[in-house]
């Protein structure tokens, strides 16, 4: 039976919803309910490339990821969950630089990152090849490398947060779609679900690519839209690659997981806005071609599986965080634009503080969505 009332209802059972639920419960917020249309990690979290990097081009993205890495480092202890399953590995991220424009961008980004204490650096093609022996350095001008970037297991990280949240009393309802947001005199009054109404004065919208639909249920126009990204994975082979290799020129990232398979994703600049998460053969052909250009020995790999998921894009590729000025009690944590998993631990902490009426320990006011009305956007340039 679903709860008839709660203090906070979180919509969405991905990493963000689970981590916010945990952080709220840890701060003694009573009666936190999480509702999820399908199952935990059924959306973007469970379909993501699992990378965790701090090499961003805006201060907010840098800070959120930097602080999240610190949390990831101690997550097994904090959530009492096996480190071998969370599988947080800091093997670095190597950005490939092919053009003068990219070189200028990465010089600026690295300067920003270093100012904030992120240990990234520009590397020569030679040094890049030392980091990734099977890299094709033809036409390569250099790279940007950060050794403390890495990856983790999104399924287990979400489960770890959800289990810790449940131990602290959070109720999680999966297979429970939201059908409406109830309002009373300009503020949230409840959440209607497929299994009944939950009365509440606070809602946190963590619905990823579907966040715009949830916001619309409350009469809010949220500038977050879904955009498909496709991924494929190979058979496992002996480990030869430590850093995630990523190229803005190719819209490509290539990572080798701890147990051996390569995960490869490539964005299509012409991908339309839609909820489409179908996989296509064209992606496999085009991505394989790009992968073989950048890392030629991977030509011998066999692809065993492909899938797709939704980025929840925001107009400046930075998240939308905070309370709606139009509907009191309606909070949003969405628009993560492909880097929600990696910034979730710290973002969730800030969101919990914000939801409970505290001043967040880092000022995130500029990430609320009024910023889009003013039109003065700081665009995150380093998105694949």
């Amino acid at each position, binding site marked *: 039976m679903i709860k008839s009332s709660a203090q906070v209802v979180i919509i969405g059972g991905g990493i963000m919803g689970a981590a916010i639920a945990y952080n709220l419960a840890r701060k003694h917020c009573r009666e936190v309910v999480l509702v999820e249309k399908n199952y935990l990690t059924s959306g973007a979290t469970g379909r993501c490339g699992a990378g965790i990097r701090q090499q961003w081009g805006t201060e907010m993205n840098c800070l959120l990821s930097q602080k999240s890495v610190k949390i990831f480092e101690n997550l097994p202890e904090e959530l009492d969950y096996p480190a071998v399953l969370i599988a947080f590995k800091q093997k670095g991220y190597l950005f490939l630089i092919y053009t003068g424009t990219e070189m200028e961008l990465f010089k600026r980004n690295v300067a920003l990152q270093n100012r904030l204490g992120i240990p990234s650096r520009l590397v020569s093609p030679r040094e890049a090849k030392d980091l990734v*022996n*099977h890299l094709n350095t033809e036409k390569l001008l250099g790279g940007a490398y950060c050794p403390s970037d890495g990856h983790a297991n999104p399924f287990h990280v979400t489960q770890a947060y959800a289990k810790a949240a449940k131990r602290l009393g959070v109720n999680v309802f999966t297979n429970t779609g939201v059908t409406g947001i109830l309002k009373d005199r300009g503020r949230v009054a409840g959440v209607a679900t497929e299994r009944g109404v939950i009365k509440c004065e606070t809602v946190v919208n963590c619905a990823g690519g579907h966040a715009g639909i949830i916001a619309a249920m409350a009469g809010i126009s949220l500038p977050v839209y879904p955009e498909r990204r496709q991924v494929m994975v190979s*058979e*496992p*082979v*002996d480990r*030869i690659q430590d850093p995630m290799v990523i190229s803005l020129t190719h819209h490509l990232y290539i990572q080798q997981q701890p*147990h*051996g398979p390569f995960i490869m994703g490539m964005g299509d600049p012409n991908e339309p806005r839609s909820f489409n998460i179908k996989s296509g053969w064209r992606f496999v052909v085009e991505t394989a071609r790009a992968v073989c250009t950048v890392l030629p*020995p*991977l030509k*011998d*790999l*066999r692809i*065993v599986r492909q899938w797709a998921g939704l980025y929840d894009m925001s107009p400046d590729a930075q998240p939308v965080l905070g309370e709606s000025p139009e509907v009191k009690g309606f909070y949003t944590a969405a628009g993560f634009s492909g880097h929600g998993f990696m910034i979730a631990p710290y973002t969730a902490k800030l969101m919990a503080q914000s939801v409970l009426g505290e001043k967040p320990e880092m000022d995130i006011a500029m990430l609320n969505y009024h910023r889009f009305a003013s039109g003065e956007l700081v665009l995150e340039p380093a998105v694949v």
Partner: protein
Amino acid sequence: MRIEKHPILEFQKGAKIKFLFDGRELEGYAGEPVAAALHAAGVRVLSHSHSHNRPRGFWCAIGHCSSCNMRVNGVPNIRVCIEPLAEGMVVETQKGRGRLDV
């Protein structure tokens, strides 16, 4: 063991040829799956699981399950259930996941 007579299927065998399995000379028929020749020769363990090193045998037989990944002519991760046998082939039990030729 081979099925010599089948009520529906007819087996058209290639020429009898020799190949090497972990240094042993075995016989099979050209063009049949490597795994079929190994099975006929009594070889039941084709690979080992990565985490626990448990023996793995012939399983899906259609190239999907990776239970029969072996090194063939020095190339790792060959699915011998769908790999045609040829004269002089060198088939080896694979240690580990297989290394890409970097």
